[in-house]
C-alpha cells in the first residue's frame, strides 16, 4: 500500500502548482459534487455516491462550456487521441476545466484520507471497511494521475512520454504500480460510468458491493485491450519478413545465462522465480493483503498501445549466427521469446527425443509435443521413401513422378510390430545380474552405461526402449511396454544373508542427464510376511552406484520373498518388483 499512498501527493502537488500558476481556483459552487461530510464518511453509502457523482458532471460541464463535440468526446473517453496531434487539439479552456476538476478531486481524496486517520481506531476493528476505504482512495488517486498525465500529454507529448516511461521507475519495480495507473483510464469510459452508476444505485450502497462493482468494471474494461503475452508460444522465431532498415531500431543482446534462465519473474520479497507473471501475482497474495486487491491482481497492460516506444530488436549471443548482430546479413529477432526459442533450437542440445519415432530430437519441449501430435499418425509414404503428412501431397508427388506409387502403410505397421516383439523377447532373455541388488536387470535403466557389472552388454542395450533420463526414478511414469518388459526381467537375488543392517547396493545408470543433481528417492520394501520397510535416500545424479540400508529387524519373520518399489514421491508408488531372499 505504500507506493500507492506515496504517489498522489506528488501528482497533486504537480498539478496544483501548474494550475495555480495559470489560473485562479475555479471552483464553481453549482457543481454537483457532493460536499464532503467527514462525519458521514463512515457510512459506505455516502462514499459510494461521492465516488460516483463526480464523473457525470464532467460531461455536462464540458458540454455546456465548450460546445465542440469532438473534444468532449475525446475527453470523456480519455482517448489518447490528442497525442496524435497535440498542437491542433490543445485547448486552453479545456485544460483549465480539467485542472480545476482535478483539484476538486484531490481535495475530495484528502478529505477521505483525513477521515480515515480520524477513525483509525474504529477501522482497527473492522478491517474490511478499512480495506474498502483504501481501495476507494487508490482508485481515486490513480484516476487523478491518469487524468493529469493525459492533460499534460495534450500540451506536450514529449513530456508525457517521459513521464510515463519514468513512472514505473518511481514506484516499486513490481507491476502493481503500473496497473493502477492504467486501469482507471478504462474505467473512465463514459459508457462504463453509466453502467457503474446504475449498478451502484441498484445495490443498496453496501461497500463490498461497491468494491465488486468497481472491480468488475475495471476488469471488463481492461479485457478488450490486446495485450501481448510474452508467454504465448511464438514459433516463427520472429521471422515475419519485416525489413527494418539497420539503425532504425535498438538492438539488445541477452546473455546465454539470461536466455536459458528457467524463470523470468521473481518475487521481490522471497526471491522465488516464476515463468509467468500471473503465477507471480498469485504467489504475491501470500505476502499480504495489499497484494490481494483486484488492482494488484489484474493483468498489467502495456503502455505500448498508448505510448510509441522506440523499436527494439534482439540479437542472438551466438557469434556467427545470422541472428547475431555481428553477422553481415543480420536479421534481428523480434521479441525475447523469439530469442529464447531461437537460441534453444539453434544452439542448444536437442535433449527431447520423440518416443514414437525415436529419431526426431528437439530442444524445446513444446516442439516435441507438437511433433508427437503428428508423429506416426497418418504417415503417407511414397514407394521412393519420401513421407508426407497429407494424403493429397503424396498423391501430388505420385502424379508428378513416373513409377512412384503410394506405399501401403500396413507394411510399416507390421514391421514395427515384429521388431517390437523381437525386442521384447530379447529383453526377456536378458536376465539380470545376480551378485547384488543390481538394478541393471531393468534394461531401461542402463542403456547408457554398458559397462555395468553383472550385465550382459548385448542384452542390456535396448536403445529403442530407452526412456527419458528424467524418468528413471519415476517408475510409475514408465510407458506401458517398458513396464511389462521390466516386470518379466526385474527379479533380483540377494545372495548375502541378512545380518544386522545390510547395505544394499544398486546401480542406476543414465541418471547423469537429469537436470537436477540430487533428489530424494523413497524405497519401499515389503516382504511376503506383510512387513513393510520404508527408506528414503538421497541420490546423486553423477554417481553410478547408490547404496541404501535396510534395518534388518524388520525381517524377523524370515520372509522368503520380498518386493521392492522405488519412486520419487509417495504417490508414484504402486509398482512393486519381486525379489528373492536367500
Amino acid at each position: 500500500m505504500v507506493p500507492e499512498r506515496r504517489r498522489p501527493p506528488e501528482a497533486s502537488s504537480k498539478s496544483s502548482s501548474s494550475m495555480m500558476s495559470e489560473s485562479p481556483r475555479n471552483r464553481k459552487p453549482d457543481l454537483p459534487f457532493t460536499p464532503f461530510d467527514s462525519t458521514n464518511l463512515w457510512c459506505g453509502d455516502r462514499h459510494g455516491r461521492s465516488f460516483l457523482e463526480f464523473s457525470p458532471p464532467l460531461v455536462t460541464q464540458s458540454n455546456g462550456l465548450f460546445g465542440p463535440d469532438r473534444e468532449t468526446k475525446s475527453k470523456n473517453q480519455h482517448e489518447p487521441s490528442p497525442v496524435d496531434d497535440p498542437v491542433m487539439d490543445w485547448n486552453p479552456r479545456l485544460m483549465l476545466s480539467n485542472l480545476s476538476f482535478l483539484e476538486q478531486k484531490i481535495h475530495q481524496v484528502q478529505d477521505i484520507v483525513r477521515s480515515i486517520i480520524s477513525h483509525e481506531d474504529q477501522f482497527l476493528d473492522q478491517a474490511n471497511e478499512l480495506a474498502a476505504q483504501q481501495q476507494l482512495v487508490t482508485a481515486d488517486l490513480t484516476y487523478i494521475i491518469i487524468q493529469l498525465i493525459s492533460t499534460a500529454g495534450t500540451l506536450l507529448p514529449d513530456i508525457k512520454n517521459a513521464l510515463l516511461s519514468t513512472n514505473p521507475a518511481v514506484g516499486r519495480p513490481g507491476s502493481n504500480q503500473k496497473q493502477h495507473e492504467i486501469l482507471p483510464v478504462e474505467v473512465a469510459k463514459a459508457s462504463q460510468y453509466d453502467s457503474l452508476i446504475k449498478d451502484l444505485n441498484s445495490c443498496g450502497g453496501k461497500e463490498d458491493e461497491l468494491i465488486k462493482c468497481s472491480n468488475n468494471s475495471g476488469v471488463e474494461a481492461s479485457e478488450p485491450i490486446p495485450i501481448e503475452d510474452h508467454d504465448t508460444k511464438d514459433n516463427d522465431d520472429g521471422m515475419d519478413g519485416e525489413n527494418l532498415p539497420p539503425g532504425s531500431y535498438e538492438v539488445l543482446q541477452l546473455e546465454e545465462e539470461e536466455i536459458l534462465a528457467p524463470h523470468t519473474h521473481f518475487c521481490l520479497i522471497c526471491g522465488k522465480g516464476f515463468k509467468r507473471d500471473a503465477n507471480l501475482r498469485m504467489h504475491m497474495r501470500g505476502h499480504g493483503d495489499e497484494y490481494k486487491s483486484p488492482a494488484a491482481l489484474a493483468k498489467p497492460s502495456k503502455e505500448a498501445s498508448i505510448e510509441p516506444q522506440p523499436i527494439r530488436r534482439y540479437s542472438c549471443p551466438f557469434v556467427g549466427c545470422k541472428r547475431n548482430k555481428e553477422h553481415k546479413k543480420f536479421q534481428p529477432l523480434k521479441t525475447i521469446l523469439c530469442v529464447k526459442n531461437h537460441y534453444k533450437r539453434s544452439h542448444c542440445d536437442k535433449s527431447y527425443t520423440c518416443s514414437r519415432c525415436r529419431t526426431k530430437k528437439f530442444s524445446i519441449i513444446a516442439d516435441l509435443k507438437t511433433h508427437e501430435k503428428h508423429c506416426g499418425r497418418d504417415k503417407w509414404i511414397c514407394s521412393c521413401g519420401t513421407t508426407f503428412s497429407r494424403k493429397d501431397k503424396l498423391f501430388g508427388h505420385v502424379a508428378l513422378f513416373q513409377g512412384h506409387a503410394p506405399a501401403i502403410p500396413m507394411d510399416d505397421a507390421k514391421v514395427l510390430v515384429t521388431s517390437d516383439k523381437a525386442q521384447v523377447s530379447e529383453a526377456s532373455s536378458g536376465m539380470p545380474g545376480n551378485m547384488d541388488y543390481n538394478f541393471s536387470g531393468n534394461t531401461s535403466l542402463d542403456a547408457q552405461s554398458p559397462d555395468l557389472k553383472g550385465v550382459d552388454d548385448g542384452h542390456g542395450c535396448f536403445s529403442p526402449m530407452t526412456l527419458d533420463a528424467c524418468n528413471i526414478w519415476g517408475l510409475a511414469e514408465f510407458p506401458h511396454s517398458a513396464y511389462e518388459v521390466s516386470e518379466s526381467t526385474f527379479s533380483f537375488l540377494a545372495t548375502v544373508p541378512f545380518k544386522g543392517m545390510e547395505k544394499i547396493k544398486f546401480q542406476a545408470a543414465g541418471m547423469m542427464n537429469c537436470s537436477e543433481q540430487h533428489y530424494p528417492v523413497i524405497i519401499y520394501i515389503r516382504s511376503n510376511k506383510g512387513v513393510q520397510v520404508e527408506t528414503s535416500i538421497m541420490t546423486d545424479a553423477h554417481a553410478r552406484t547408490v547404496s541404501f540400508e535396510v534395518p534388518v529387524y524388520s525381517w524377523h519373520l524370515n520372509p522368503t520373498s520380498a518386493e521392492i518399489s522405488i519412486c520419487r514421491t509417495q504417490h508414484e508408488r504402486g509398482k512393486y518388483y519381486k525379489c528373492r531372499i536367500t
Partner: protein
Amino acid sequence: MERAQQQSSDSILATLSVDLLIQILDFVADPRDRKSWRQVCRGFLHAEALRRRSLRVLRREALQGLLRRYAACLERLDLSACPSLDDHALAAALAAGAGLWRLRSINLSRASGVGWRGLAALAKACPHLEAVDLSHCVGVGDREAAALATAAGLRDLWLDKCLGLTDVGLAKVAVGCPALEMLGIKWCLEISDIGIELLAKKCQNLRVLDISYLKITNRSLQFVSSLGKLEDLSMVGCSHIDDEGLQFLNNGSNSLQSVDVSRCENVTSSGLISVIEGHKYLQNLNIGDCFPELAPLFLSKLNDLRDSLTVLKLDGFQVFAPSLKIIGLNCRNLVEIGLSKCKWVTDEGVSELVAGCVNLMTIDLTCCHLLTNKALVAIGDKCKNLTCLQLESCKLITDKGLDCIGTCCSNLEEIDLTDCTMTNAAMKYLSRCSELMVLKLGLCDKISDEGLVHIASNCKKLRVLDLYRCFEVTDDGLAAIATGCKRIKNLNLCYCTRITDLGLKHLSCLEDLHDLELRGVHCITSLGITAIANGCQHLTELDLKHCHLVDDAGLFALGQYTKNLRQANLSYCQVSSMGLCNLLGSLKCLQDVKLVHLTQVPVEGFESALRASGGRLKKLKLLTGLRHLLSPGLIQMLQDRGCRIRWVDKPLNLVP
C-alpha cells in the same frame, strides 16, 4: 479280348493326328458332346485340352488337376463358382501349370477367400494377364490392389464392392497398370476425389469407367473429363455430383458414348444439356431417378443426338404425352427405351413415341398403370423388331392387347406380364412368338394348364418361366411344359399349391434346369425331390421353403445327384440332423444355405452339419436363437472362411 479291342481302337485313333482331331472337335459344339469326346481316350482328351480356351471350375478339389491339364492353352479362367477358394489353393493350382500360362482373363468374383498372396502368385504366374474380375470380394483392400498392380499388362479390372479399397490401392493400380482400359470401382466407398484424380492422370487409355455410388464430388469429374478415350461412364447414385460437375463433360474432349447418371439426385436437366452439347455421338443415356420432370430444353436438345442415340432410360420421371412425342420425333434411331415407373405415360404418348421410333426393340413400361390395349396395338403396329416388352403391373391390359403383339412381333424373346390380368387366351396369342425365351406370369392367377399347353406347343426356346402364385397350374400343365420346352433353365413355381410329386416327375426330364423354386408347394414330398435330383443334375439353386413334407430322403437324393447345387433354402422342412448333415457334407459346391426353423434338427445336428460343410459356405441364414447355442469356435471358423451368417428372428409360422 478286351485288351485286343483296346489296341485296335488305339490304332484307329492313332492315324488321326492331333490337328485333325482338333478340326473335328470344332464341329462338336454341345458341352455334353464335348464331355463324351473327352471320355473317348487320351488322345481325344489331349486334343480337347489343346482346343479349350476357357474353363469354369465348379469344385476346388478338381482345380489343380484341371489347370495342370489345360494350362497350356487356357485363356479365360472362371473361378467365381469355386467354393472355398483361398490363397493356398490358388497358388498351388497356379504352380501346377507353371510356365505355361497364356491366361488373359480370370474371374474371381465373390471369391472372398482370395487375398493378396494369391493375387501376387497369380500376377507372377500369368505374365499376359489382361482382365481380372474381383467384384464383390468384400475383403479386398489396398494390399490386394497392390498385388494386382504388378500385372502391368492389365486392361480390364473390376473391383466392384471391394470395400477395403482406398485411394492408396487405386493409386497402386493406376501406377502399376497404365494400360488400363476398363475399370469398375462401384461401391468402393473409401475412394475419394484424390484417387480419381491420380487415376485420370495415370491411366489415359481408360475407355470404360464405373464410379457408381462413390462419394466423389464435381472435382473428380473435372479430371475424368480429361480422359480422351473414355466411352462409357457410369456414375449411378453419386449424390455429391451436380450440374456443375457435368459441365466439365461439356468440353467434348472425350469420346463418350454412354453415360449413366441415374439416381444422382442433384443432377438436373441443365447438367444433362451440357453433357449432350459436349458429345454429339452419345448412344446411351440413362438418367433414371434423377429429377422428376423433363425440361423442354432437354427434350429439344435430344435432337442433337438424333442419329446416334439408341438407348434412353427415363425411369421414374413424369412423362406426358407431348414429351414422348418429342422423343419420338427427335430420336428416330432409338432401340431401347425405359419408362419404368414413369407417371402419366398414356396410350397416346406411347403411340406418338412408337410412331417415331420404329426401330425399338426393348420397351420397358413397368408400372405404367394408365396403359391399355391401345398402347399395345400401337407398339405391335410399329415396332416389328420388338424383342423385349416389360409390362409388369399394367393392370388395364387384357388378352386382346397381346393378340396384336403375338401377331406382329414375331421376334419377341422376352415378355414380363407379372401382375397383369391375363388369361389362357393371352397365352394362345403369345404362343405365336416362337422365339420366346423369357416369360413371366407371376400373380396371373387365371393362367391354367390350358395356357401352358399353348405355350409349350410352340415356344421351344423358352428358358425362363415364372409362374409365381399361379394357383390354377397343375401337374398336367407341367407335363406339357416339360415336353414342349426342353430348354427351360429357370422355373419358378412358388405357391402353385396344386402341384404334386407327379408334376415334379414330369419336370425331371428338363436336363437344363438350373434354378427351381418350389417355395410353399406343400403337397410335394421327398419322392418328387428325388425325381428332380435324379433328372436335373445341373440344378444349382433350389428353394424348398415351406415344403413341409420333404424329409431326409429328399436330402439324401439331392446330396447324391445334384452335385452342382450352390444355393438351397430348406427352411421349415421336416428334415432331421442326419439328412442335413449328409446334404452339407456331400455337396461340394453348396455355398448359400438357409436353415431357418428346422424343428426336427437339434443344436448338435446344426453343429455337426455345419462342421461337415467344411467351411465352403459363403452365406448362411440361421435363427438368432442358435447364435448362443452353437459353439463359438464353429461360428468363428465359418466367419474366418468368409461365411456371412445372417441371424433372423421370426416366429415359427407354418402357414406360408
